[in-house]
């Protein structure tokens, strides 16, 4: 009886999850199915995948986008973690203002960003691809900020920080050995979000005339749509495998259940 009740209560949830799964996976499965078609011979095969990995540019661009995203993640963590820790610990009155500012990248059109960057960045920055990570950082700010904010709000940050300092840890040590490990899941979410947004960023990159993996895929798609889909599928699968491997190899330390 109770079991039946429970099932009935969970019914809407199950339906929603099912719909969501279909919504996400049907297009992906369709794309995958499409990408392994071999129109000339008929049937299915790995032709386009083999073609893609034989392309030198495939690895060139995926590597480039990978390290750009990596640099963006580093910039995000180095700037945001200490700043937000300070905002939370000091209970600064500017915090609501900064909360608001962190949302601006969602409402400012990317074109405006690109133009702004062209105007304001010094020439030597504009001439290197390093301008991208800084702009990617701004674009992923709303997500990274929110995710860290949740983590920092969920712990007794002030007491823990003071306990670390009175135990002899300076600020760098406090952040690296106490705060980041304690909000680990929120830091991981920030890394994942920033990485994903940066590796897939297209509009800004194109506007600033840089070539990265997404712009190359678009270029390929102009005369080899099946190849482009194969490349996109791989760009989904490869990071997925990397992230899964990382998660499996980092030992999970239980930090929940705090009273």
């Amino acid at each position, binding site marked *: 009886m109770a079991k039946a009740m429970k099932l009935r209560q969970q019914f809407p949830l199950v339906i929603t999850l099912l719909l969501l799964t279909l919504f996400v996976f049907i297009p992906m499965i369709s794309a995958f199915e499409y990408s392994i078609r071999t129109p000339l011979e008929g049937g299915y095969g790995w032709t386009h995948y083999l073609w893609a990995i034989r392309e030198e540019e495939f690895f060139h661009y995926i590597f480039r986008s990978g390290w750009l995203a990596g640099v963006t993640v580093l910039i995000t963590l180095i700037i945001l973690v200490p700043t937000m820790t300070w905002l939370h610990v000091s209970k600064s009155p500017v915090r609501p203002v900064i909360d608001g500012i962190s949302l601006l990248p969602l409402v400012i059109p990317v074109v405006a960003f690109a133009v702004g960057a062209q105007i304001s960045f010094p020439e030597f920055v504009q001439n290197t691809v390093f301008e991208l990570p800084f702009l990617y950082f701004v674009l992923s700010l709303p997500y990274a900020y929110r995710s860290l904010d949740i983590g920092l709000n969920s712990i007794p940050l002030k007491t823990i920080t003071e306990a670390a*300092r*009175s*135990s*002899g840890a300076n600020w760098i040590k406090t952040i690296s050995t*106490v705060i980041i490990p304690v909000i680990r899941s929120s830091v991981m979410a920030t890394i994942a979000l920033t990485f994903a947004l940066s590796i897939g960023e297209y509009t800004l990159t194109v506007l600033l005339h840089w070539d990265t993996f997404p712009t190359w895929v678009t270029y390929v798609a102009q005369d080899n749509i099946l190849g482009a889909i194969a490349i996109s599928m791989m760009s989904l699968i490869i990071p997925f495998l990397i992230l899964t491997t990382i998660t499996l190899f980092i030992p999970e*330390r239980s930090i929940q259940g705090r009273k």
Partner: protein
Amino acid sequence: MTSKNLSLNGIFKQFGNVRALDNFNLEVGVGELVALLGPSGCGKTTALRVVAGLEHQDSGKVLVGNQDISNIPAHKRNMGMVFQAYSLFPNLTVEENVAFGLQMRKISKPLRLKKAHQLLDLVGLDSQSKRFTHQLSGGQQQRVALARALAFEPEILLLDEPLSALDAQVRVNLREEIRRLQLSLGTTTLFVTHDQEEAMAISDRVGVMNQGVLEQIDTPDILYNKPASSFVAGFVGTMNKIPAFINDGFVEIFGEKVVALKQGNETGKVLALIRPEAIKVSTTGSKFNAKVLTRSFMGASSNVICQTSDGTIVQSLMTSAATGDLHPGSEVQLQILSKEVLVTNV
């Protein structure tokens, strides 16, 4: 590292318009446990945080072993601190928490774990060393916090209301344990609390604070028996405030003349400050001057609350044996047992 003496000289600290510390002076001797006691907002926690380096005073000096540490950052001060609650690092095990201070001092892992186990043994938690802190009870967590604060052999131990989040029984046990450890290690300790019983129970000296000023600092006995001000008298223990008339250095209370402890030679209306145990309630007297309102039985002693004929409420503490025949409504005679009383202006 051995313990050192601590002194605060002329500390001022202001938050906005609120003066948290107003020319605050304090001396804590080597190996002494001094408690700062006071109502919330009196500045006691600020004083402790200034010592820890977590707040910086506007002016004045903090000296440890006669060395001025006013401009040394918190992490270099070598002070162990125990907070109210939730100060343990949730990502570390119990032993890693205790060893944290030693890790920051770059002590090798085997050495610091050995020291951590020694401390955990002292607080009776060595068997829990591999657990995570959320698996411990509140009392156990505070024991770990105490072990962590002591592991790196601090010059000064700072306790910021470490017992206030705990259950009554755990609180009493843990405060005894803090005192036992503090005495055996000889650590100079500053203890902040709003609980006077706690402060009186384990401290060598207690400082009573009010509005950023140290009103009186003395041994618990002196503080209780010879409070320097009416604020201290009212804050430490229970005190009856009985309207009386002062004349020629004497006050008349319940029809008896008693020496008034007061400077000057004035005449007029005052309040006499009398401890409940200095008032005797009896049914056998010749002139009844009060009525019993309630009697609360507390085991060996009982609390009797009476109302005098002029309406003053008086509280008396007597052995339960002597209060057996007191019932609400009984006509009684109140007598003062002490020969001298503190008085204060109305």
